[in-house]
């Protein structure tokens, strides 16, 4: 990354994702891709000033359930490659600076290629965290271990599992073979959520209603839930909810369930924790300068998140 003169963001408000509240006027100094300091007033020095006095600054959003590749992918190259890149560029424009892609239909390793293209700045886009393939019902139980191993050796960030009727023992074996890589499991029934929770997988992408018993059990466990359409819970308190972009209504849909501020936390600090990204998710010195600014109060109007006025990825202004 080329060194650049710092950016001094003069902000009307900051969103504090742990406290779930907005803080008043603050300056944020960004240097070398990192947040250097946060204070009520910072001297300009040689930094370039960005006037965000009418805006709220938030951590860059993290989408843990981004679908970049359509199911019709075939062949080595093709238009789908550029469609996926354009999708990743559009995520960034909407303020999503990090996106986890839990498996593609492509039999090759194109998601890893896309991740690399963005990391090497061949094209703009959200930073990708990739499970190269979805380990689904096409694999026999006996093939799963090998498949996990292959994903890991080829450079997976995540292992993604989507099998109906999967057992806790099978998932424990996946977690073992993953050798430290986090495991994401698609869960369509309360029973599948319980199994994921029992196996202590890192995340479950959930598309069903949780009953009170399941919710209570998950709250006691360690698995993060990434809601999909169809998700519901009797009481969200105590669940570790992280945002995923497969909700057709986006963050606003999550906010209907949790309230706006917790939904913002789900897309920042909680998503970062789920993905073990200790370098992002909050606005603090030392964190990566993945930041977005929206005009107005996002807690009062969460729809503002759809159209950020400023997006900064690793210290660089994207728009």
């Amino acid at each position: 990354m080329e060194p650049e003169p710092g950016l001094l963001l003069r902000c009307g408000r900051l969103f504090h994702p742990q406290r779930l509240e907005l803080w008043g006027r603050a300056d944020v100094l960004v240097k070398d891709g990192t947040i250097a300091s946060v204070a009520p007033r910072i001297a300009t020095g040689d930094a370039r000033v960005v006037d965000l006095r009418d805006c709220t600054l938030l951590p860059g959003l993290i989408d843990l359930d981004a679908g970049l590749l359509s199911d019709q992918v075939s062949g080595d190259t093709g238009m789908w490659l550029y469609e996926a890149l354009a999708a990743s560029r559009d995520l960034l424009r909407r303020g999503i600076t990090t996106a986890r892609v839990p498996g593609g239909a492509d039999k090759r390793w194109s998601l890893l290629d896309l991740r690399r293209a963005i990391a090497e700045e061949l094209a703009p886009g959200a930073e990708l965290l990739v499970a190269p393939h979805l380990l689904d019902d096409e694999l026999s139980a006996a093939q799963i271990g090998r498949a996990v191993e292959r994903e890991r050796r080829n450079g997976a960030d995540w292992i993604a599992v989507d099998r109906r009727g999967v057992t806790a023992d099978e998932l424990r074996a996946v977690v073992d073979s993953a050798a430290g890589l986090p495991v994401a499991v698609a869960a369509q029934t309360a029973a599948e959520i319980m199994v994921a929770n029992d196996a202590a997988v890192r995340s479950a992408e959930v598309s069903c209603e949780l009953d009170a018993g399941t919710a209570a059990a998950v709250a006691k466990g360690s698995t993060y839930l990434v809601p999909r359409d169809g998700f519901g819970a009797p009481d969200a308190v105590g669940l570790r909810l992280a945002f995923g972009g497969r909700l057709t209504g986006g963050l606003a849909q999550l906010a209907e369930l949790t309230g706006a501020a917790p939904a913002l936390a789900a897309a920042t600090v909680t998503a970062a924790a789920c993905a073990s990204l200790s370098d992002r998710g909050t606005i603090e010195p030392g964190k990566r300068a993945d930041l977005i600014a929206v005009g107005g109060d996002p807690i009062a109007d969460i729809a503002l998140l759809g159209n950020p006025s400023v997006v900064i990825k690793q210290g660089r202004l994207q728009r």
Partner: protein
Amino acid sequence: MSDTKSVQPTIVKAGAVFDGVGPDLRGPTEILVIDGRIAEIDGTVSRPDGAETIDLSDRTVSPGFIDCHIHSELTPTRLLGTVHTESSAMKSLFALKGLKEMLDSGFTTVRDASGLDESNSTVDLKRAIDIGLIDGPRMLVAPHMLSGTAGHGEAPPLDSFYHRPWGGIVDGVDPIRAKVRHEVLIGADWIKVSLSGFFGFRRGDGPEEICWTQDELNACVETARDYGVHTMVHALGDESVRRSVKSGARSIEHASLASAETVKMIEDAGTYVVPTWIVTELFQSGAVTDVHKMPSGEGPPPEMPQVGIFLMGDQLAETQKHIAASDVKIAFGSDAGGFPHGEAWREFVAMVNGGISPLRALRAGMSTAAELLELPDHGQLKPGMVADIVAMQGDPLKDIEATGRVDFVMKQGAIHRRSDGA
């Protein structure tokens, strides 16, 4: 954004204009752009409602540059290192950076003189640009480098995970005809043949070594023509250049060692030459091989071409003189990819250093290139033309290096890059 066609009319106020043909620079001129085309160009133009005015009164404005010989998938830091070691997808993704650099630096149209993969990846790149998924110049594509066994189109002999040919080895009249038809089927705008080798990379790849007979080349050119597609032939040594002229190929790439007599033959036949002198110069200076040594030790082998180029330095200079002194139709081609794509404009400078007048060099990258590529509504600034417009500081007729100072780029009426303060 460059991926959205500007719907509002635009008025470009130029301090001076080179219209792609010349011979002179015009003074202050206004250009009215509507729906991606030049509607009016005059001292003052009409003022439609809602028109945006771009003040380039301290710039020289010209048609977008046209590069008739690039390799988008060839990355200067890796050269042919990616052929076997990268996936097909990755080779295409590497191209994105260079294509954007070319558009940023003023090239609004390029002809890709072959990709590095057996898939039709450069055709996909072209389509992705056309529909706005990625940023880049308009592309015309010769998908694969066709040559005979042992010819220049043989991939480097490396062994690796992605062991796959890059799609162009073919011998014999009938297989050549079938291959050409297949290129047309997958979307070829051009057929690319490497008839001679390069600079002694290995056995079979020398400048005087020739991979196809006259019959084979003729079959290729004729078959392509039956589909309305032209052939571009990489030919360095004199005999290969002569064979190319005889075949009726539309352009000869490099023509590096053509004799005076052969240059006359090219002139008489009306064949275009794309000299690519900058890449020769960079190989000669060792810049290519030095720059591209990878930290990992990858990159070109030490016996790479500059050895041959050094030995032939005098002959190369001789041919440059013949071409500069001739009336051969010269079209601009940089061979970018062998060096960073953002530096392709240096071919303008290399042409002038080689004895070609600045006027002829500029035409080569504008109106003459458009003629070669049969793009009748490109390469000139006049009403009806596609609005590919760039602006630079200085007068390129007096200082050819002005072509390296492009800071405004409009492609088909959409502003891709704005000058500071404009």
